[in-house]
Protein backbone atom coordinates (compact mmCIF):
# COMPACT_ATOMS: atom_id res chain seq x y z
CA UNK A 1 0.00 0.00 0.00
CA UNK A 2 1.47 3.30 -1.01
CA UNK A 3 0.97 6.00 1.57
CA UNK A 4 -1.37 8.87 0.87
CA UNK A 5 -0.12 12.36 1.60
CA UNK A 6 -0.10 15.84 0.12
CA UNK A 7 3.34 15.03 -1.23
CA UNK A 8 2.23 11.81 -2.90
CA UNK A 9 -0.72 13.66 -4.34
CA UNK A 10 1.61 16.29 -5.78
CA UNK A 11 3.98 13.67 -7.13
CA UNK A 12 1.17 11.77 -8.82
CA UNK A 13 -0.37 14.91 -10.23
CA UNK A 14 2.90 15.58 -12.05
CA UNK A 15 2.59 12.21 -13.74
CA UNK A 16 -1.05 12.77 -14.62
CA UNK A 17 -2.30 10.48 -11.86
CA UNK A 18 -1.49 7.53 -14.05
CA UNK A 19 0.50 5.63 -11.46
CA UNK A 20 -1.92 5.26 -8.58
CA UNK A 21 -2.41 1.66 -7.64
CA UNK A 22 -5.63 -0.08 -6.70
CA UNK A 23 -6.80 0.77 -3.20
CA UNK A 24 -7.87 -2.86 -2.81
CA UNK A 25 -7.75 -5.75 -5.25
CA UNK A 26 -10.93 -7.38 -6.48
CA UNK A 27 -10.27 -10.80 -4.96
CA UNK A 28 -11.61 -14.18 -5.94
CA UNK A 29 -12.35 -16.59 -3.11
CA UNK A 30 -9.76 -19.06 -1.90
CA UNK A 31 -10.85 -22.52 -0.76
CA UNK A 32 -10.42 -21.79 2.90
CA UNK A 33 -10.08 -18.95 5.38
CA UNK A 34 -9.51 -18.60 9.07
CA UNK A 35 -12.31 -16.07 9.25
CA UNK A 36 -15.03 -15.12 6.81
CA UNK A 37 -16.96 -11.93 7.41
CA UNK A 38 -20.33 -11.80 5.67
CA UNK A 39 -21.14 -8.24 4.67
CA UNK A 40 -18.64 -5.71 3.30
CA UNK A 41 -20.03 -2.63 4.97
CA UNK A 42 -18.09 -0.43 7.36
CA UNK A 43 -18.70 -2.88 10.20
CA UNK A 44 -17.58 -5.95 8.28
CA UNK A 45 -14.59 -4.34 6.59
CA UNK A 46 -13.63 -2.72 9.87
CA UNK A 47 -13.77 -6.06 11.66
CA UNK A 48 -11.48 -7.55 9.00
CA UNK A 49 -9.15 -4.59 9.39
CA UNK A 50 -8.90 -5.02 13.16
CA UNK A 51 -8.59 -8.82 12.88
CA UNK A 52 -5.59 -8.31 10.61
CA UNK A 53 -4.05 -5.28 12.31
CA UNK A 54 -4.65 -6.08 15.99
CA UNK A 55 -5.05 -9.84 16.21
CA UNK A 56 -2.65 -10.97 13.53
CA UNK A 57 -5.37 -12.88 11.73
CA UNK A 58 -4.86 -12.11 8.07
CA UNK A 59 -6.30 -15.17 6.33
CA UNK A 60 -9.62 -13.40 6.22
CA UNK A 61 -12.24 -12.84 3.55
CA UNK A 62 -14.99 -10.24 3.53
CA UNK A 63 -17.80 -11.33 1.23
CA UNK A 64 -20.62 -9.18 -0.07
CA UNK A 65 -23.47 -9.89 -2.45
CA UNK A 66 -22.97 -6.46 -4.01
CA UNK A 67 -20.29 -3.78 -4.02
CA UNK A 68 -18.49 -2.92 -0.82
CA UNK A 69 -20.03 -0.17 1.23
CA UNK A 70 -23.24 -0.40 -0.77
CA UNK A 71 -25.60 -1.11 2.10
CA UNK A 72 -26.34 1.14 5.04
CA UNK A 73 -22.74 2.38 5.07
CA UNK A 74 -23.46 4.31 1.89
CA UNK A 75 -27.05 5.19 2.74
CA UNK A 76 -27.03 6.90 6.10
CA UNK A 77 -26.97 10.48 7.31
CA UNK A 78 -23.41 10.08 8.70
CA UNK A 79 -24.16 11.30 12.21
CA UNK A 80 -21.67 10.43 14.92
CA UNK A 81 -22.42 10.89 18.62
CA UNK A 82 -22.14 9.03 21.88
CA UNK A 83 -24.51 10.83 24.23
CA UNK A 84 -26.37 7.67 25.18
CA UNK A 85 -28.02 7.21 28.53
CA UNK A 86 -26.99 3.78 29.68
CA UNK A 87 -23.45 2.96 30.72
CA UNK A 88 -23.28 0.09 28.26
CA UNK A 89 -24.30 2.20 25.26
CA UNK A 90 -22.29 5.23 26.29
CA UNK A 91 -19.18 3.07 26.63
CA UNK A 92 -19.65 1.44 23.24
CA UNK A 93 -20.44 4.61 21.33
CA UNK A 94 -17.80 6.68 23.12
CA UNK A 95 -15.26 3.99 22.31
CA UNK A 96 -16.34 4.55 18.73
CA UNK A 97 -15.89 8.30 18.94
CA UNK A 98 -12.40 7.74 20.36
CA UNK A 99 -11.60 5.63 17.32
CA UNK A 100 -13.25 8.10 14.94
CA UNK A 101 -10.97 10.86 16.17
CA UNK A 102 -7.88 9.06 14.94
CA UNK A 103 -9.35 7.05 12.13
CA UNK A 104 -8.01 9.15 9.25
CA UNK A 105 -4.48 8.85 10.58
CA UNK A 106 -4.88 5.21 11.56
CA UNK A 107 -6.12 4.27 8.09
CA UNK A 108 -4.06 6.84 6.18
CA UNK A 109 -7.36 7.70 4.54
CA UNK A 110 -9.18 10.94 5.23
CA UNK A 111 -12.65 9.89 6.44
CA UNK A 112 -13.41 13.57 7.04
CA UNK A 113 -14.60 13.12 10.59
CA UNK A 114 -16.10 16.50 11.25
CA UNK A 115 -16.41 17.35 14.93
CA UNK A 116 -19.02 20.02 14.62
CA UNK A 117 -21.37 19.17 17.48
CA UNK A 118 -24.77 17.56 17.74
CA UNK A 119 -27.62 19.51 19.26
CA UNK A 120 -30.71 17.58 20.35
CA UNK A 121 -33.68 19.89 20.72
CA UNK A 122 -36.08 19.63 23.64
CA UNK A 123 -39.63 20.59 22.73
CA UNK A 124 -41.58 19.42 25.77
CA UNK A 125 -41.14 19.37 29.52
CA UNK A 126 -40.64 15.64 29.21
CA UNK A 127 -37.85 16.19 26.66
CA UNK A 128 -36.16 18.53 29.11
CA UNK A 129 -36.28 15.95 31.88
CA UNK A 130 -35.09 13.21 29.58
CA UNK A 131 -32.23 15.20 28.07
CA UNK A 132 -31.02 16.36 31.46
CA UNK A 133 -31.02 12.76 32.58
CA UNK A 134 -28.80 12.00 29.60
CA UNK A 135 -26.52 14.95 30.31
CA UNK A 136 -25.96 14.01 33.94
CA UNK A 137 -25.40 10.39 33.06
CA UNK A 138 -23.01 11.33 30.28
CA UNK A 139 -21.03 13.62 32.54
CA UNK A 140 -20.51 10.93 35.15
CA UNK A 141 -19.57 8.52 32.38
CA UNK A 142 -17.02 10.96 30.98
CA UNK A 143 -19.05 11.66 27.86
CA UNK A 144 -19.37 15.28 26.84
CA UNK A 145 -22.89 16.65 26.63
CA UNK A 146 -24.24 19.88 28.02
CA UNK A 147 -27.46 21.77 28.33
CA UNK A 148 -28.14 24.86 26.22
CA UNK A 149 -30.95 27.26 26.96
CA UNK A 150 -33.26 28.28 24.16
CA UNK A 151 -31.20 31.43 23.65
CA UNK A 152 -27.96 29.46 23.57
CA UNK A 153 -29.48 27.08 21.04
CA UNK A 154 -30.36 30.02 18.85
CA UNK A 155 -26.85 31.37 19.17
CA UNK A 156 -25.41 28.00 18.19
CA UNK A 157 -27.78 27.54 15.23
CA UNK A 158 -28.93 31.00 14.20
CA UNK A 159 -31.53 29.79 11.69
CA UNK A 160 -33.41 27.89 14.43
CA UNK A 161 -37.04 28.87 14.98
CA UNK A 162 -37.26 29.68 18.69
CA UNK A 163 -40.68 31.31 18.62
CA UNK A 164 -42.65 30.59 21.79
CA UNK A 165 -45.71 30.14 19.60
CA UNK A 166 -44.25 27.31 17.56
CA UNK A 167 -46.22 24.08 17.61
CA UNK A 168 -43.20 22.54 19.31
CA UNK A 169 -41.36 25.41 20.95
CA UNK A 170 -37.66 24.94 21.58
CA UNK A 171 -37.25 24.62 25.36
CA UNK A 172 -33.52 24.09 25.18
CA UNK A 173 -31.22 21.43 23.93
CA UNK A 174 -28.44 19.00 24.71
CA UNK A 175 -25.18 19.67 22.91
CA UNK A 176 -22.45 17.13 22.44
CA UNK A 177 -19.53 19.03 20.99
CA UNK A 178 -17.47 15.99 20.16
CA UNK A 179 -20.25 14.66 17.96
CA UNK A 180 -20.38 15.30 14.26
CA UNK A 181 -20.32 13.60 10.91
CA UNK A 182 -17.94 11.73 8.63
CA UNK A 183 -17.68 10.91 4.95
CA UNK A 184 -19.50 7.58 4.92
CA UNK A 185 -18.12 6.00 1.75
CA UNK A 186 -14.57 6.85 2.79
CA UNK A 187 -14.99 4.81 5.96
CA UNK A 188 -15.70 1.66 3.96
CA UNK A 189 -12.94 2.44 1.46
CA UNK A 190 -10.40 3.27 4.12
CA UNK A 191 -11.05 0.05 6.02
CA UNK A 192 -11.06 -1.94 2.78
CA UNK A 193 -7.74 -0.47 1.75
CA UNK A 194 -6.24 -1.04 5.18
CA UNK A 195 -7.50 -4.62 5.42
CA UNK A 196 -6.46 -5.50 1.88
CA UNK A 197 -2.97 -4.16 2.55
CA UNK A 198 -2.71 -6.67 5.40
CA UNK A 199 -3.78 -9.56 3.22
CA UNK A 200 -7.55 -9.63 3.65
CA UNK A 201 -9.50 -10.74 0.57
CA UNK A 202 -12.43 -8.53 -0.32
CA UNK A 203 -14.84 -10.50 -2.45
CA UNK A 204 -17.62 -8.46 -4.03
CA UNK A 205 -20.65 -9.54 -6.03
CA UNK A 206 -20.65 -12.89 -4.28
CA UNK A 207 -23.85 -13.76 -2.41
CA UNK A 208 -23.65 -15.91 0.70
CA UNK A 209 -26.59 -18.26 0.30
CA UNK A 210 -26.12 -20.35 3.44
CA UNK A 211 -23.90 -20.98 6.41
CA UNK A 212 -22.84 -24.62 6.51
CA UNK A 213 -22.29 -26.42 9.81
CA UNK A 214 -20.11 -29.38 10.74
CA UNK A 215 -21.67 -32.56 12.11
CA UNK A 216 -20.71 -31.38 15.61
CA UNK A 217 -22.77 -28.27 15.04
CA UNK A 218 -19.92 -25.84 14.68
CA UNK A 219 -19.52 -23.64 11.65
CA UNK A 220 -17.93 -25.21 8.54
CA UNK A 221 -18.01 -22.37 6.08
CA UNK A 222 -20.33 -20.55 3.73
CA UNK A 223 -22.14 -21.53 0.58
CA UNK A 224 -21.90 -18.73 -1.95
CA UNK A 225 -22.80 -17.96 -5.51
CA UNK A 226 -19.14 -18.73 -6.24
CA UNK A 227 -19.21 -22.09 -4.43
CA UNK A 228 -18.51 -23.35 -0.96
CA UNK A 229 -15.79 -21.61 1.06
CA UNK A 230 -14.44 -23.28 4.14
CA UNK A 231 -13.87 -21.24 7.29
CA UNK A 232 -12.90 -21.83 10.88
CA UNK A 233 -14.95 -18.88 11.99
CA UNK A 234 -17.72 -16.86 10.38
CA UNK A 235 -18.82 -13.40 11.47
CA UNK A 236 -22.09 -12.09 10.09
CA UNK A 237 -22.42 -8.33 9.78
CA UNK A 238 -25.02 -8.00 7.04
CA UNK A 239 -27.27 -5.28 8.52
CA UNK A 240 -30.82 -5.64 7.23
CA UNK A 241 -30.13 -9.07 5.78
CA UNK A 242 -28.57 -10.57 8.90
CA UNK A 243 -31.60 -12.53 10.03
CA UNK A 244 -31.93 -14.16 6.60
CA UNK A 245 -28.28 -15.26 6.65
CA UNK A 246 -28.36 -16.41 10.26
CA UNK A 247 -31.48 -18.50 9.73
CA UNK A 248 -29.49 -20.67 7.33
CA UNK A 249 -27.33 -21.62 10.32
CA UNK A 250 -30.42 -22.33 12.37
CA UNK A 251 -30.08 -19.20 14.48
CA UNK A 252 -33.25 -17.19 14.88
CA UNK A 253 -32.72 -13.64 15.98
CA UNK A 254 -34.93 -11.01 17.56
CA UNK A 255 -34.67 -8.79 14.50
CA UNK A 256 -37.01 -7.00 12.17
CA UNK A 257 -35.91 -5.10 9.06
CA UNK A 258 -37.50 -1.77 8.28
CA UNK A 259 -37.11 0.75 5.46
CA UNK A 260 -35.41 3.96 6.50
CA UNK A 261 -35.35 7.00 4.23
CA UNK A 262 -33.01 9.93 4.04
CA UNK A 263 -32.59 12.83 1.66
CA UNK A 264 -30.36 15.69 0.67
CA UNK A 265 -31.10 19.16 -0.61
CA UNK A 266 -29.37 20.94 -3.43
CA UNK A 267 -25.96 22.20 -2.30
CA UNK A 268 -25.69 25.71 -0.91
CA UNK A 269 -22.96 27.74 0.70
CA UNK A 270 -22.38 26.97 4.40
CA UNK A 271 -25.41 27.94 6.48
CA UNK A 272 -25.81 25.10 8.94
CA UNK A 273 -22.98 24.66 11.43
CA UNK A 274 -23.72 21.40 13.24
CA UNK A 275 -26.01 18.41 13.53
CA UNK A 276 -29.48 19.03 14.92
CA UNK A 277 -31.83 16.30 16.00
CA UNK A 278 -35.40 16.75 17.06
CA UNK A 279 -37.06 13.63 18.36
CA UNK A 280 -40.36 15.34 19.02
CA UNK A 281 -40.87 16.17 15.35
CA UNK A 282 -38.85 13.17 14.12
CA UNK A 283 -36.15 14.75 11.99
CA UNK A 284 -32.46 15.35 11.97
CA UNK A 285 -30.30 17.53 9.77
CA UNK A 286 -26.75 18.57 9.04
CA UNK A 287 -24.93 20.13 6.10
CA UNK A 288 -22.35 18.13 4.21
CA UNK A 289 -18.94 19.42 3.20
CA UNK A 290 -20.37 19.61 -0.31
CA UNK A 291 -23.11 21.97 0.85
CA UNK A 292 -26.11 19.65 0.78
CA UNK A 293 -28.48 19.61 3.72
CA UNK A 294 -28.55 15.98 4.81
CA UNK A 295 -31.87 15.06 6.40
CA UNK A 296 -32.99 11.84 8.01
CA UNK A 297 -36.41 10.63 8.90
CA UNK A 298 -37.92 7.74 10.79
CA UNK A 299 -38.69 4.26 9.54
CA UNK A 300 -41.81 3.30 7.69
CA UNK A 301 -44.24 1.32 9.79
CA UNK A 302 -43.90 -2.05 8.04
CA UNK A 303 -40.95 -4.41 7.63
CA UNK A 304 -39.45 -4.44 4.18
CA UNK A 305 -36.40 -5.20 2.12
CA UNK A 306 -37.51 -3.03 -0.80
CA UNK A 307 -35.33 0.01 -0.04
CA UNK A 308 -38.23 2.20 -1.10
CA UNK A 309 -40.29 3.76 1.65
CA UNK A 310 -43.30 5.98 1.25
CA UNK A 311 -44.04 9.59 0.39
CA UNK A 312 -46.02 10.48 3.55
CA UNK A 313 -42.96 9.96 5.72
CA UNK A 314 -40.92 12.29 3.53
CA UNK A 315 -43.66 14.89 3.65
CA UNK A 316 -43.72 14.71 7.40
CA UNK A 317 -39.95 14.84 7.75
CA UNK A 318 -39.63 17.89 5.56
CA UNK A 319 -42.53 19.60 7.28
CA UNK A 320 -40.72 18.98 10.55
CA UNK A 321 -37.48 20.44 9.21
CA UNK A 322 -39.14 23.56 7.87
CA UNK A 323 -41.06 23.92 11.12
CA UNK A 324 -37.80 24.02 13.06
CA UNK A 325 -35.85 25.85 10.30
CA UNK A 326 -38.39 27.92 8.34
CA UNK A 327 -35.75 29.53 6.11
CA UNK A 328 -35.30 26.22 4.29
CA UNK A 329 -38.82 26.20 2.85
CA UNK A 330 -37.61 27.28 -0.60
CA UNK A 331 -34.67 24.91 -0.60
CA UNK A 332 -35.16 21.89 -2.84
CA UNK A 333 -34.86 18.19 -2.26
CA UNK A 334 -32.23 16.82 -4.62
CA UNK A 335 -32.47 13.13 -3.97
CA UNK A 336 -33.80 10.70 -1.43
CA UNK A 337 -33.02 7.07 -0.88
CA UNK A 338 -33.92 4.16 1.31
CA UNK A 339 -31.94 1.74 3.41
CA UNK A 340 -32.86 -1.33 5.40
CA UNK A 341 -32.30 -1.21 9.13
CA UNK A 342 -32.44 -4.23 11.39
CA UNK A 343 -34.07 -3.44 14.68
CA UNK A 344 -33.98 -5.37 17.95
CA UNK A 345 -36.72 -5.22 20.58
CA UNK A 346 -34.63 -2.93 22.80
CA UNK A 347 -33.20 -0.96 19.86
CA UNK A 348 -29.68 -1.84 20.98
CA UNK A 349 -27.26 -3.90 18.96
CA UNK A 350 -26.14 -7.47 19.31
CA UNK A 351 -22.37 -8.12 19.09
CA UNK A 352 -22.18 -11.65 20.25
CA UNK A 353 -21.18 -15.25 20.04
CA UNK A 354 -24.03 -17.48 18.98
CA UNK A 355 -25.16 -20.97 19.97
CA UNK A 356 -23.24 -22.17 16.91
CA UNK A 357 -19.54 -22.64 17.60
CA UNK A 358 -17.38 -20.37 15.49
CA UNK A 359 -20.34 -18.25 14.36
CA UNK A 360 -20.55 -14.64 15.50
CA UNK A 361 -23.03 -11.92 14.80
CA UNK A 362 -22.98 -8.13 14.78
CA UNK A 363 -26.45 -6.77 14.06
CA UNK A 364 -29.47 -4.88 15.29
CA UNK A 365 -28.05 -1.40 14.88
CA UNK A 366 -31.34 0.06 13.78
CA UNK A 367 -30.82 3.66 12.78
CA UNK A 368 -27.57 4.00 14.76
CA UNK A 369 -25.10 1.80 12.97
CA UNK A 370 -22.89 4.29 11.19
CA UNK A 371 -21.72 6.13 14.27
CA UNK A 372 -20.79 2.82 15.88
CA UNK A 373 -18.73 1.61 12.93
CA UNK A 374 -15.21 1.69 14.41
CA UNK A 375 -16.28 0.60 17.88
CA UNK A 376 -18.50 -2.19 16.63
CA UNK A 377 -15.88 -3.39 14.19
CA UNK A 378 -13.18 -3.28 16.83
CA UNK A 379 -15.10 -5.22 19.48
CA UNK A 380 -16.56 -7.63 16.93
CA UNK A 381 -13.04 -8.45 15.73
CA UNK A 382 -12.00 -9.01 19.33
CA UNK A 383 -14.96 -11.30 19.95
CA UNK A 384 -14.17 -13.36 16.85
CA UNK A 385 -10.43 -13.52 17.52
CA UNK A 386 -10.68 -14.47 21.18
CA UNK A 387 -14.00 -16.29 21.07
CA UNK A 388 -15.16 -14.09 23.92
CA UNK A 389 -16.58 -10.60 24.08
CA UNK A 390 -14.53 -7.50 24.68
CA UNK A 391 -15.65 -5.93 27.99
CA UNK A 392 -17.32 -3.16 26.00
CA UNK A 393 -19.58 -5.43 23.98
CA UNK A 394 -20.10 -8.03 26.70
CA UNK A 395 -23.54 -6.61 27.61
CA UNK A 396 -24.70 -6.72 23.98
CA UNK A 397 -25.49 -10.41 23.95
CA UNK A 398 -28.36 -12.39 22.51
CA UNK A 399 -29.13 -13.79 25.96
CA UNK A 400 -30.46 -10.50 27.26
CA UNK A 401 -33.74 -11.07 25.46
CA UNK A 402 -34.28 -14.17 27.54
CA UNK A 403 -33.20 -12.78 30.87
CA UNK A 404 -34.74 -9.38 30.39
CA UNK A 405 -31.44 -7.55 30.89
CA UNK A 406 -32.25 -5.16 28.07
CA UNK A 407 -30.38 -2.00 27.15
CA UNK A 408 -33.44 -0.06 26.24
CA UNK A 409 -32.51 3.48 25.28
CA UNK A 410 -35.86 3.99 23.61
CA UNK A 411 -37.82 2.90 26.67
CA UNK A 412 -35.70 5.24 28.75
CA UNK A 413 -37.01 8.06 26.62
CA UNK A 414 -40.59 6.89 27.19
CA UNK A 415 -43.31 9.32 26.29
CA UNK A 416 -44.85 11.02 29.25
CA UNK A 417 -48.35 12.23 29.73
Amino acid at each position, binding site marked *: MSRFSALSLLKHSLSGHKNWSKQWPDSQPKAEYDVIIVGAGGHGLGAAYYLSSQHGITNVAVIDKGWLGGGNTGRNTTIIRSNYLYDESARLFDHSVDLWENLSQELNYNVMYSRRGCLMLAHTVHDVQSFKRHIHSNRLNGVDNRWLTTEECKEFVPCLNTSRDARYPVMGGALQERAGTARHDAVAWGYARGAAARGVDIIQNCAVTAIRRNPDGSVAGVETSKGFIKARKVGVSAAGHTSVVMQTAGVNLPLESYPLQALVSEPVKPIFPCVVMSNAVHAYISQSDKGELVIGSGTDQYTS*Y*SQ*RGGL*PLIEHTIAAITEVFPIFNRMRMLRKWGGIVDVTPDRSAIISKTPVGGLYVNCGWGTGGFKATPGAAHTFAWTIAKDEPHPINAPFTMERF*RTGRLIDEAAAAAVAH
Partner: protein
Amino acid sequence: MLLIHCPYCDETLPEAEFTYAGEAHIVRPLDPSAQTDEQWETFMFIRRNPKGPHYERWRHLHGCARYFNAVRDTVTDKFLTTYKAGEPRPDLESLK
Protein backbone atom coordinates in the same frame (compact mmCIF):
# COMPACT_ATOMS: atom_id res chain seq x y z
CA MET B 1 -47.82 4.47 0.24
CA LEU B 2 -49.14 0.93 -0.02
CA LEU B 3 -52.59 -0.08 -1.18
CA ILE B 4 -54.22 -2.56 1.15
CA HIS B 5 -57.33 -4.66 0.72
CA CYS B 6 -59.36 -4.78 3.92
CA PRO B 7 -61.03 -8.19 4.08
CA TYR B 8 -63.83 -6.82 6.26
CA CYS B 9 -64.65 -3.72 4.21
CA ASP B 10 -63.86 -5.50 0.94
CA GLU B 11 -62.22 -2.36 -0.36
CA THR B 12 -58.67 -1.63 -1.46
CA LEU B 13 -57.55 1.48 0.32
CA PRO B 14 -54.48 3.62 0.94
CA GLU B 15 -52.06 2.72 3.69
CA ALA B 16 -52.93 5.95 5.50
CA GLU B 17 -56.03 4.22 6.89
CA PHE B 18 -54.05 1.29 8.28
CA THR B 19 -51.50 0.54 10.94
CA TYR B 20 -49.00 -2.29 10.82
CA ALA B 21 -49.13 -4.75 13.69
CA GLY B 22 -46.21 -7.13 13.23
CA GLU B 23 -45.85 -10.78 12.34
CA ALA B 24 -49.05 -12.83 12.23
CA HIS B 25 -49.94 -16.21 13.70
CA ILE B 26 -47.95 -15.72 16.88
CA VAL B 27 -50.38 -17.10 19.39
CA ARG B 28 -50.16 -15.99 22.98
CA PRO B 29 -49.71 -19.12 25.07
CA LEU B 30 -52.82 -20.14 26.98
CA ASP B 31 -50.84 -20.49 30.19
CA PRO B 32 -47.92 -18.08 30.04
CA SER B 33 -46.78 -19.02 33.52
CA ALA B 34 -46.00 -22.52 32.31
CA GLN B 35 -43.61 -21.18 29.68
CA THR B 36 -39.87 -21.47 30.07
CA ASP B 37 -37.78 -18.33 29.70
CA GLU B 38 -36.71 -19.54 26.25
CA GLN B 39 -40.29 -20.12 25.16
CA TRP B 40 -41.31 -16.73 26.44
CA GLU B 41 -38.39 -15.10 24.66
CA THR B 42 -39.46 -16.77 21.44
CA PHE B 43 -43.04 -15.63 21.87
CA MET B 44 -42.05 -12.08 22.72
CA PHE B 45 -39.09 -11.37 20.51
CA ILE B 46 -38.02 -13.92 17.93
CA ARG B 47 -39.41 -13.05 14.51
CA ARG B 48 -39.08 -14.66 11.09
CA ASN B 49 -38.29 -11.39 9.32
CA PRO B 50 -38.31 -13.13 5.94
CA LYS B 51 -37.10 -11.68 2.69
CA GLY B 52 -40.12 -12.60 0.61
CA PRO B 53 -43.67 -13.52 1.60
CA HIS B 54 -44.40 -12.42 5.15
CA TYR B 55 -47.45 -13.34 7.20
CA GLU B 56 -48.28 -10.17 9.02
CA ARG B 57 -51.02 -8.27 10.77
CA TRP B 58 -52.53 -4.95 9.91
CA ARG B 59 -55.30 -2.93 11.50
CA HIS B 60 -57.79 -0.89 9.50
CA LEU B 61 -57.53 1.71 12.23
CA HIS B 62 -59.25 4.56 10.41
CA GLY B 63 -61.90 2.33 8.89
CA CYS B 64 -63.60 -0.74 10.32
CA ALA B 65 -60.96 -0.84 13.09
CA ARG B 66 -60.43 -4.59 12.61
CA TYR B 67 -57.13 -6.40 12.88
CA PHE B 68 -56.61 -8.72 9.96
CA ASN B 69 -53.85 -10.79 8.42
CA ALA B 70 -51.95 -10.37 5.19
CA VAL B 71 -49.28 -12.02 3.14
CA ARG B 72 -46.95 -9.40 1.72
CA ASP B 73 -43.74 -9.85 -0.22
CA THR B 74 -41.17 -7.82 1.69
CA VAL B 75 -39.00 -7.48 -1.40
CA THR B 76 -41.64 -5.91 -3.66
CA ASP B 77 -43.96 -4.77 -0.83
CA LYS B 78 -46.84 -6.28 -2.85
CA PHE B 79 -49.68 -7.91 -0.98
CA LEU B 80 -50.35 -11.48 -2.08
CA THR B 81 -53.54 -11.66 -0.06
CA THR B 82 -55.31 -10.41 3.03
CA TYR B 83 -57.66 -12.44 5.22
CA LYS B 84 -59.69 -12.07 8.36
CA ALA B 85 -58.26 -12.68 11.80
CA GLY B 86 -58.86 -16.24 12.88
CA GLU B 87 -58.84 -17.64 9.36
CA PRO B 88 -56.15 -20.24 8.65
CA ARG B 89 -52.79 -19.28 7.24
CA PRO B 90 -53.08 -19.57 3.45
CA ASP B 91 -50.70 -21.85 1.65
CA LEU B 92 -48.05 -19.89 -0.24
CA GLU B 93 -48.41 -22.12 -3.27
CA SER B 94 -52.05 -21.11 -3.63
CA LEU B 95 -51.03 -17.44 -3.81
CA LYS B 96 -48.74 -17.73 -6.80
